[in-house]
């Protein structure tokens, strides 16, 4: 039997792990790095580049290099997040036929699941080379607050990469699995603080003898390490403009250099108290070339991003209240994601909980390790580990008057199935449109639309008489399916909610076929 790998498909970096002789290990890529940049580029000669190769040429080929596409996956083109990305990203984002954002690189347009698929394929390749055997199955992680569309797109990406996705699990849950692995069975309440490149999640779990139960999870879609970078970039832009009178905001190449430098400076300041940003020849005008040279202190950085860190603590408080516990009830805090290396983050967390966070896990690798552990546990004969995860978002339908009827509350243990009876609002109404939504607002409009379908053939009757039972299922992947039944006629209609941005099977197959053509280039 081939082995199952765990993949942390990150916003900025991805990581792959496997359980080897009972021990979970991270698999280094060909360059010896344990993480691979989640980047993809189309070079001038039409070559496809992934990972470090893509990152290396990003400065010179910014328009055709995709990074952080995880922020776009499964979203609608008209969403705030996509609009923001259009403003900020040097690559071109266009609207696809399913109202989804797509990426135009040169002549070719890529879907987001396709880009994610290319990165997953690279991770699969890394694993295959290391293991010396083909890999077919994987567990892939997603941020806990990902909605159904984002999860489905990630699953599609796995398919595109030629992987059978055994399960989609939440990143903080995976981190907790890795933390709990090999520990003596004892009852513990654990809080995972996961601040990655583009996402922020908090999960609270209870661990017992071989069982992990997620009590609550909360997240902030609009928050991640890249927001820290952006603050630093802005600071550099302002400093440069004040000194030289030149605004670099419209210079794609200069911006890319600034972004890289900002990220590096941010990382440096986790080690040292002061760092220097040097970008020679960043611009030029009538007076000749200009250089950027700025000294940045840790203190300055902390002043720039302090409010972002404060925002994360608000999410922590919300999660604690959802779990019905207090900070004192938390036995262990686990920090996940590269951004948690920042001393300010560690201090704020330590202050809040009155104890130092757990040091034993590598924040970049722990998620992939957890995914590998879960994959192994699913396939093993002796069930040593059971994961009881929850749905991060409430699920329901739009009802009469634009209300949102929640049928499954957030933080409900999965798998779950709930059925409710609804009725018509007009006489002789023979069809109902069922709009499935995910979110927390009472107003239907303000939630994410997962999809809609029409149940027709309802017997003619006065309004309020027909009884239509709508059942919702959320499986252990967090993926939703819905069915509706007219209790009088027995007529049933079921759908796997196909959210905006997800691809049809034909589309996926076409992408898979397309990619086969490029297979040889992945192996250079």
């Amino acid at each position, binding site marked *: 039997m081939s082995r199952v790998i765990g993949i942390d498909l990150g916003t900025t970096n991805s990581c792959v792990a496997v359980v080897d002789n009972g021990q979970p290990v991270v698999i280094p890529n060909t360059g010896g790095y344990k993480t691979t940049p989640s980047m993809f580029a189309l070079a001038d000669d039409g070559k496809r580049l992934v990972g470090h190769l893509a990152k290396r040429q990003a400065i010179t080929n910014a328009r055709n290099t995709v990074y952080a596409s995880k922020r776009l996956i499964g979203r609608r083109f008209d969403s705030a997040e996509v609009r923001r990305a259009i403003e900020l990203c040097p690559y071109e984002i266009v609207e696809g036929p399913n109202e989804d954002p797509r990426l135009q690189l040169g002549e070719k347009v890529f879907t987001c699941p396709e880009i994610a698929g290319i990165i997953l394929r690279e991770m699969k390749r890394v694993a295959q080379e290391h293991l010396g055997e083909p890999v077919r199955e994987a567990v892939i992680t997603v941020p806990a607050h990902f909605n159904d569309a984002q999860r489905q797109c990630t699953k599609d990406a796995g398919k595109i990469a030629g992987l059978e996705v055994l399960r989609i699990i939440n990143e903080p849950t995976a981190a907790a699995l890795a933390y709990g692995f090999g520990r003596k069975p004892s009852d513990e309440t654990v809080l995972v603080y996961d601040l990655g490149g583009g996402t922020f999640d908090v999960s609270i779990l209870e661990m*017992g003898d071989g*069982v992990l139960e997620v009590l609550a999870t909360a997240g902030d879609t609009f928050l991640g390490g890249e927001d820290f970078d952006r603050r630093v970039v802005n600071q550099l832009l302002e400093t440069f403009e004040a000194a030289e009178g030149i605004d670099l905001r419209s210079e794609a190449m200069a911006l890319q250099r600034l972004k890289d430098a900002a990220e590096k400076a941010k990382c440096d300041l986790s080690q040292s108290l002061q760092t220097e940003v040097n970008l020679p020849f960043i611009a030029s005008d009538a007076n000749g070339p200009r250089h950027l040279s700025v000294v940045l202190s840790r203190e300055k950085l902390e002043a720039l991003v302090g409010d972002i860190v404060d925002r994360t603590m608000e999410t922590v408080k919300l999660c604690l209240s959802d779990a019905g516990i207090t900070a004192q009830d938390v036995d262990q805090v686990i920090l996940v994601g590269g951004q948690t290396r920042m001393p300010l983050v560690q201090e704020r967390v330590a202050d809040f909980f009155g104890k130092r966070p757990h040091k034993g896990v590598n924040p970049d690798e722990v998620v992939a390790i957890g995914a590998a552990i879960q994959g192994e546990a699913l*396939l093993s004969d002796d069930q040593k580990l059971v994961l009881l995860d929850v749905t991060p978002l409430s699920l329901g339908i739009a009802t009469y008057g634009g*209300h949102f009827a929640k049928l499954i509350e957030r933080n409900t243990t999965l798998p779950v199935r709930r059925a409710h009876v609804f*009725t018509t*609002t007009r006489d002789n109404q023979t069809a109902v449109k069922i709009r499935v939504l995910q979110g927390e607002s009472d107003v239907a409009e303000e939630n994410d639309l997962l999809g809609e379908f029409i149940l027709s053939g309802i017997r003619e009757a006065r309004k*309020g008489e027909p009884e239509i039972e709508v059942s919702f299922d959320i499986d252990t992947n967090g993926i939703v399916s819905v069915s509706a039944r007219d209790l009088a006629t027995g007529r049933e209609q079921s759908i796997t909610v196909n959210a905006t941005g997800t691809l049809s099977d034909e589309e996926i197959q076409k992408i898979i076929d397309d990619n086969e053509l490029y297979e040889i280039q992945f192996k250079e």
Partner: protein
Amino acid sequence: MRLGANSAGQSERYPRLGAGVDPSRLSLTPAEGYLLSRIDGATPWLLLRSIGGLAPDDVDRCLERWIAEGVVVLTSRDGRIEKAAPRAASAPSAPTAAVAAADVDASLEIPVEVQLRILEFEAKLERPYHEILGVAAEADRKELRRAYFALSKELHPDRFFRRNTGPFGKRLDRIFGKIVEAYELLSDPTARAEILRSLAAAAGEGAAAQAAVEAAPAAEEQAKPEAARPRAPRRPHVFSLHSRVVRERKARAKRFFEAGMAAYSAGRWTEAAGGVRLAIAFDPWNAIYKEQFAGVQRKAHDERAAKLVREAESALELRDFKAALHCFEEALEYRPHDAELLHRAAKLAWATGGDLHRAKEWAMAAVELDAKSAAYHRVLGQVYKAAGLEANARRELEAALALDPNDEEARTALRGGGGRSLGFRWLGGGKR
């Protein structure tokens, strides 16, 4: 397990429903449901075996299972409850296993003993929550969690990931869902208090019922067991209500009600009625909603009827009499006591060669509601005439003329002329 000598003994017994049992909460096949419906405390086991629907052996198995589960208790001929339901006390799982054996499938990728365990567990899903978790009713949070974790490890669907589990996959889903429900509710102090209260209430009624049975004089014949049977608790199994869900439903009902009332003040009656109807659907115990509903619904019906009349009128203009009649008919469903509407429907039905029987009923109803209208009498007379009831026709037409001597149409009809008319056009044919 076969029924041996024991069944003969049981045959002399009178099964009846246990105290507080709500049959609607059991999961039964129609045949089992039929059997359960025949159990009245007066029909002996022996007779139940021959009521049809189930083979006698299956009847025995069913009854034994129900006895084991406490759904059914046995009484002797004099109406006394058998102290310990036979077998139920000594080997509670044995009858279940007997039923289960038929469902075990050795070809599945679940060990047979695990299959039996699943079937056994499934059989107790209707029991009180703490019994599902296998803890005492007063178990603390730690004990609850330990039980929950242990059961999760044992019965979580993931344990059989990708295995061929046949029908057991669905069973596991159901079981695990129930385990989660039990754990969540018992962990919520409010919900748990409610559960304990209703359990205590049910137990109280059960005990009272039993006392009543024992105190009852030896039952003579049929009627007695009926009287001795305890009344079902008013709201059996309240403990299965999820208090949080109830709160939410009430909150939702309130929102619908408020939206409905807002529509009401804005004069949008149909929308208002829809809102209040939904409020009642979500919170059927709220008296205010029900009280308001009648008024709102009447307004909504008036609105709907008025709209239908307008539709009928435009259909008339287009000479689409069939559609117009249909609209009047429908409008009458909303305003069955509107004399004018009845009159117009009757007139149209008569004039277009429609159903004379209904035309007569409408016309009569109109006259009954307003005997002072010459037109109502006239139309009724015309309908009678078309139906060949000359004497009745004459009476009504004369009444019309007495009320309005200028009613030329009535006069013409009395003279023997006058076919079916809309007043503006003769319509040929169709007259029987």
